[in-house]
């Protein structure tokens, strides 16, 4: 199994495998992004991408159908789009609508097109589509005035009327301790607030919408208040049901939440330097599903 040592010299904030599990992108406070190829036991550094002017918080690979494309977001307030063509990497777009740190960036479900969702400490989130002829005007709305720490798309669900009738949702978590659920209308290029979920008592640091195919929606949110809350809802319900992942608080702040590719397992990382895995049990509570150990 590949082990990459000393990828960066500074803090590493994110590392993401691509769709095929063949490339790994890492980003760091050293303002670079490194692309590794991983195969079998081996790994090879392919490229180091420079361009950001501050710590890079997250990276996200686009769906292969668009090509080999990576998005990154940074303290410098920008989202940069990178593409590999013929073995060479280049920066192909800049998304600079925010006036403060962009804390998370995520490509939308590929059925929506080449769409990006960005969350910023300027209190806003932006949705921007990259068309073949260049970017469209981004949709920017204020989400959490004090600052938005994370945003995550809901999985794509086909409704009766076809793609154009889709309800495209995403969830955000803010420094106001709130979690909000939004609806994005691509035709009218507008975003409306659907729900405001109260529960956390400190900054929400990450939100993750489960990609499960089941009819029940799950959102995991983690916070500096050392709790992880699972929000769930079925189409027919009015309100989201709130379930604490566990009754006791975690030893330290929680930092990231990430669902497995089909939403069966939730991975949490936090200030106690652990990555714990969780899954739902028969009775709808959450039980440990493993822990990453050295």
């Amino acid at each position, binding site marked *: 199994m590949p082990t990459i040592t000393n990828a960066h010299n500074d803090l590493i904030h994110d590392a993401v495998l691509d769709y095929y599990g063949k490339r790994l992108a890492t980003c760091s406070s050293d303002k670079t992004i490194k692309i590794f190829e991983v195969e079998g036991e081996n790994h090879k550094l392919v490229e180091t991408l420079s361009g950001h002017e501050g710590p890079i918080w997250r990276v996200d690979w686009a769906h292969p159908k668009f090509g080999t494309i990576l998005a990154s977001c940074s303290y410098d307030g920008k989202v940069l789009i990178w593409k590999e063509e013929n073995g060479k990497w280049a920066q192909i777009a800049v998304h600079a609508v925010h006036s403060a740190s962009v804390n998370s960036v995520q490509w939308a479900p590929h059925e929506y097109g080449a769409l990006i969702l960005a969350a910023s400490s300027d209190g806003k989130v932006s949705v921007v589509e990259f068309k073949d002829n260049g970017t469209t005007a981004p949709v920017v709305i204020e989400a959490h005035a004090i600052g938005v720490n994370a945003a995550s798309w809901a999985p794509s669900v086909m409704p009766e009327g076809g793609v154009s009738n889709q309800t495209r949702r995403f969830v955000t978590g803010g420094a106001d301790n709130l979690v909000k659920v939004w609806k994005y209308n691509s035709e009218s290029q507008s975003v409306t607030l659907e729900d405001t979920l109260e529960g956390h008592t400190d900054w929400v640091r990450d939100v993750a919408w489960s990609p499960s195919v089941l*009819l029940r929606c799950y959102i995991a949110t983690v916070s500096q208040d050392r709790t992880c809350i699972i929000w769930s809802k079925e189409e027919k319900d009015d309100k989201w049901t709130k379930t604490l992942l566990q009754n006791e608080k975690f030893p330290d702040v929680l930092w990231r939440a990430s669902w497995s*590719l089909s939403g069966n397992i939730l991975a949490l990382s936090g200030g106690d330097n652990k990555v714990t895995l969780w899954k739902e049990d028969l009775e709808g509570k959450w039980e440990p599903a493993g822990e*990453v150990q050295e």
Partner: protein
Amino acid sequence: VADLPVDNQALLHRQFPIFSWGSGGKLMYGLPIESNQSSFIMGSGPALPTIKIVNADSVVTRELFLQSFPGPLVKNKTKKKDVEKWLQSVLEDSSGDDSSLVRIAADILKIKVADSGTWSDISRSLYNSDELFVYLSQPFAVPEHLPVAHKLDSSNQMKVLAHLQTGGQDEALKLALQNNDYAIALLIGSLMGKERWSEVVQYYLTEEFKIESDVSDFSSNLLSLIFQVFVGNSKEAIREFSQVPIKKQWALNNWKVIISAVLNNINPNTDSSPSSINQAPPVILEFLIEFGLFLAKFGCGTQASIVFMIANLPLSSSPLDNTSITFESVGSPNSVNGRILSEVYEFACSNDAKGFPVLLLQKLQQAFYYQELGMTSNATKYADYLGTIVKGLPKKGSNTINFAHSLAELSSQITGSSTGWLGKP
């Protein structure tokens, strides 16, 4: 750990663990070196020296019986014996946790799959009443046979008859109860319909069935419920005790003993109903449904599923009775155990080769789960099976479109993991 205010800025300078899920059953992680250690070493090496990519399988705790599960279960194809054997292994594995809902559900399903069980087998799954047999075989001191109860004297007996001849049921009942003659009171109550009869039963048990050591009236509550179930008054009985907090709690806590007791009193010789566990007598069916709804209403949804399973209700998205409660899955469909138990239930109990359509998404999710853990052959079996099912779904409709779409995604993941780099779309 004390609740100190968090320094938000400082967090931006901490190294947190990093983690990412990868396709083909892989995951990537990097754990930071403990900060105090780092300071002690005084090196300036990276806080996160190593990033590892491993098989998810080596980290995720897997259910022991997941690999051996002979799914997908296809009626008339999968052998009953294989399912029974697998259930048996689950039961042996449950590490002695007799009260676990998984064990109870698996035990009941084993009885149902075998198709030769009795109601007392199911009763035993819930509660093993052997301890009662021990109790019953103990010799008791021969009690003194002094009369301690009351009954009506001759002239009052004649009055009762006269009341009944003139249609004065209430008067007859009052006379009987005033004189504490419960036998004749019960008989009079039997003329007055099941609700009045149940009232008399409850009154009698409350007055006469007080056992000193009886915490929260366990005995009289249980007896009262049993008798009301068999007279067809389940709905009312359950409604009544769900409104009295102490009784409600008793019922929620003792649901297994309660159902066990009721099932043990199903007498195949009475009524014309078959003793087959596939078809509960009407009063029992009513009881199981009402009790299940009660459990679900007060937060015991999984226990309710087990009760609905005993009642052989089909899994469906249609609400039960006039409630908003549905029985779509045995336990949570987002849990591995729940999905597997639901699939076994469908195999055991569905009459239709089509099974319970509501389970299709669950089976798809289960297939994705296998794929996530890198158990590609299991995932493939499900993908193939679901592929044949998709052909039978209505062509239009968002449900079918979504299902097919997701199934295609699964198939491409499976293909991707087996051919690697070459599997570009």
